[in-house]
């Protein structure tokens, strides 16, 4: 199996978008030190990209595959109180890994949007999840290198770095042209130029 396909699968797993085939591919390659390292790098890179270096040490793939490896032992094996407890533990650890994965995934979603949270927005707002503080984060170094914020994904990271700013700008300007609320899209567009 090609290195690239594996890395794509890794990325898919990280995005919670892997199908079963990809998941199996990643799990079977997980003993490989290099793969594990790639996985860890992706996590860190992703965390950095989202300014959310919280749990870079979490190795979900290892946890899941270890759990699955245990489970692969035929059920005919010795039955005893410890055995069933063990199976319970396996189930629990898979659940934990999945939960941790989901949590990691959701934090990605949240991380991009941390802003000075307003204390009382009347009506609309339910109790808020307090995310990691990213206050006073204006003009962080990661912003300075462009929206892609680094060569997160291997290949030619330059491709996206070159195009995304232009895409974002074009979107913002076109929105400003069409917008009825003219000032808001303009302000969005201008804020992209401030880096």
């Amino acid at each position, binding site marked *: 199996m090609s290195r690239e396909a594996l890395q794509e699968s890794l990325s898919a797993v990280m995005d919670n978008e892997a199908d079963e085939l990809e998941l199996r591919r990643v799990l079977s390659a997980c003993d490989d030190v290099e793969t594990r390292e790639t996985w860890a790098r992706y996590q860190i890179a992703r965390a950095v990209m989202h300014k959310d270096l919280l749990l870079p040490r979490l190795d979900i793939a290892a946890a899941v595959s270890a759990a699955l490896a245990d489970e692969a032992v035929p059920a005919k094996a010795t039955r005893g109180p410890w055995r069933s407890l063990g199976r319970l533990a396996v189930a629990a650890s898979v659940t934990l890994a999945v939960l941790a994965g989901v949590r990691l995934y959701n934090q990605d979603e949240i991380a991009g949007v941390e802003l000075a*949270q307003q204390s009382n927005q009347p009506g609309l707002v339910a109790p808020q999840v307090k995310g990691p503080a990213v206050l006073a984060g204006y*003009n962080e170094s990661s912003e300075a290198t462009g929206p892609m914020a680094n060569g997160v994904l291997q290949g030619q990271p330059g491709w996206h770095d070159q195009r995304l700013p232009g895409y974002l700008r074009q979107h913002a300007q076109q*929105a400003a042209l069409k917008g009825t609320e003219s000032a808001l899209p303009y*302000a969005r567009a201008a804020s992209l130029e401030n880096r």
Partner: protein
Amino acid sequence: MRSIPLLTLLLSGWFVVPAHADEAQDWLTRLGQAEQQQSFQGTFVYERNGSFSTHNIWHRVQDGKVRERILQLDGSAQEVVRLDGRTQCVSGLLVAGLGDTPNSAARALDPQKLKNWYDLAVIGKSRVAGRPAVIVSLTPRDQHRYGFELHLDKETGLPLKSLLLNDKGQLLERFQFTQLNTADTPPDKDLQPGSDCKVVNLESDKASAVKAAQSWRSDWLPPGFVLTSSTARKDPATKNQVNSLMYDDGLARFSVFLEPLNGEKITDTRTQLGPTVAVSRRLTTPQGDMMVTVVGEIPAGTAERIALSMRTDTATTQQ
């Protein structure tokens, strides 16, 4: 007589809720008219994750013409001057090929249509820039768009403050006036562009716009979003033809960019910049691999799904 308070409550609920919805609709209609009818000048702030900026705006309605100038006050002097919604001059980097696209006329805010995708409600009063305001909330009816909270000036209907909120109620961006003057009409000198404001040349725009070779469509769109413009232009740096499509639901907007990869192996990415998400996905077509990039103020999952749903009309494509 326990039933009386309950009955009152029920009745008031019965009457109050539709009244609020209608009221919200009226306020949005006023908002739509205000910018076409009201002259004003003021200062506003814009804030999103990683960016905070302050701007001046001069807006003059005279003889049925709307002239507007916006100038950033901190950092670089970003500036734009517009006449009747047409950009006259811009500072900074303007993308060529945008100025004169067909049907690029601004679409008026249509509360009737918005009601299909958002719950409209007046949820309270506030005070912004020293002026009393009414708070109108637009809560999305599905997970494919964000919610707005608009604080509209009681006197004029102008938006004094606009918040964009995700499904968890987290603030994605803030637009807020700190000072607004609706009494005086801005004088000519304030509407004159600065020296760094580059005149937008529609002719050169047309030159870089090219005829679209392939037509694109999306197998899936979030409900309510319709195509509002479609352009193709040659990127001066890469010589690639980039197709772009813009969709909106009357309030939220996203763009789809399609660019040939010419055999380059590029990985898919996902980026979030405050309210704006950018999702890139590789798409295999008979003409070679393309990179599909969705950029817009919509949730990441929705953008992802749109990116995966783009197809050419020319032939069968496979993802």
